[in-house]
């Protein structure tokens, strides 16, 4: 990725897509490294309700309480490309993403017409 990227605007809070284009979460937080005077560098994308609380105060804590404390950390090297969404190199389950959808699917499929 040669071009310049404004991580605050082009990455944070954007849709995450896996290799197959499956929607698998949002960029909830970024891990940035680099001390004073050094070049700051994004080292990982952080996904999951566990990260909300620290960003959104009381409302975030409430949302986190409902959403659970799940936290997933995806190294920046796993990012394939960034367009209007952030694309990952592998499939969602390999990162532990999209688990709730995968867990719900068998139940939803039991209702007739779910695969119409």
């Amino acid at each position, binding site marked *: 990725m040669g071009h310049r990227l404004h991580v605050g605007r082009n990455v944070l809070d*954007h849709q995450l897509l896996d290799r197959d284009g499956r929607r698998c*979460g949002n960029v909830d937080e970024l891990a940035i490294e680099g001390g004073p005077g050094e070049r700051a560098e994004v080292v990982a994308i952080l996904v999951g309700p566990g990260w909300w609380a620290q960003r959104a105060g009381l409302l975030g804590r409430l949302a986190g309480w409902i959403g659970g404390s799940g936290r997933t950390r995806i190294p920046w090297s796993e990012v394939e490309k960034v367009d*209007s969404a952030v694309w990952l190199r592998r499939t969602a389950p390999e990162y532990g993403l999209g688990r709730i959808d995968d867990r719900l699917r068998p139940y*939803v499929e039991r209702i007739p017409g779910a695969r119409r």
Partner: protein
Amino acid sequence: MSKLLNLALGILAAIGGFVDIGDLVFNTAAGATFGYQLMWVIPIGVVGIIVYSEMSGRVAAVSGKAVFDTVRERTGFSAGLGALLASEVVNLLTLAAEIGGIAIALQLLTDLSYRVLLLLAVVALAVVLWTLHLEWIERLFGYGGLCLLVFAVAAVKLSPDWVKVGAGFVPHISQNDPWLYLYFAIGLLGAAMTPYEVYFYSSGGIEDGWTTKEIGLNRANAIVGYALGGFLSLALMMVGASVFLKHGIEPEHLGTIPLGAQEPLGKIALLLGIVGILFAVGGAAIDTVFSGAYNLAQFFGWEWGRYRHPAGAPRFSVTWIVLLLCALAIVLTGVDPIMVTEYAVIFSAVALPLTYIPILLVANDPEYMGANRNGTLANVLGVVYLVVIMVVAVTAIPLLLITNVGQS
């Protein structure tokens, strides 16, 4: 040919999406209370919904982003979550009101009790949503909603005083109970620019796989579809003025509205009116329940969409089922759906700025939008309507209190 068909379908969907219980109630009641004096508000509301629907549809086509993608992206998690909560509350209230409206319309056709009809309405909606493709749902409710055209025929047949009708298009304030007049003006704007219309419209564009090729289609759909919706609103207001004002009837019950078509045209018109209301309100129920699920899924990044079967986006499917059940619980308490409608419309005015500002920002972003970013016209109108919406948002609740929810 398929282009023309697409256009026709989109227009139908826009008409169906525009006229809902809020429009039915506010337009008819405004006509019954102030005659033709509030006609001028309708075009203002219609242009507003066209401007922001076109913008959100263009953003969807070019960047693949639906409304709540942009809300989260542009306002951040914290403020975005606030916007999400506000819009979910408004959506749920609107949904509850629409479900109540379906039951009221069905009551005119059957002898079953209101509560049984509420249950039937929710089951019918769930079955339709689960089994039909989105395009078929849009066609079904779009065509059905066209029965409302009977009100346009009725409006003309009632031979209104066209000079007075024309004078109604000149903006003015009524000397007679100005607070109530303003309450209706704000309500009419709120009903025309209900936020779910924009959520559903933009998400629908993504569901239909819109790309930059569909920008023209998007524009045509928004302009023609909502303009026809506005035309129906004008007809409803005129019928309200000609039938209900004359007889001193306040159409507080949704079931009274089709009588406005019956007076000049007879029994068949009554039936068409009821069927039109049933489909318009049913279609709006579908739009609102999906909007609620779309917004949540987009904000949190879940898989969403009806282009997949329900099992393709399980959390999304479960969400709309839960929303339907919540709305059912609200109306089963026996609360008057018309009352819920008025609150939903007025509170939606408060949630609107949070929805429209991010759309306006993204539509101007050259990085996403390139050559398709907002032109001067879209920006001037966008900013003007933002001001209109802010005024509406600030005055909505005080007016609701001053007029005791339009009862004064």
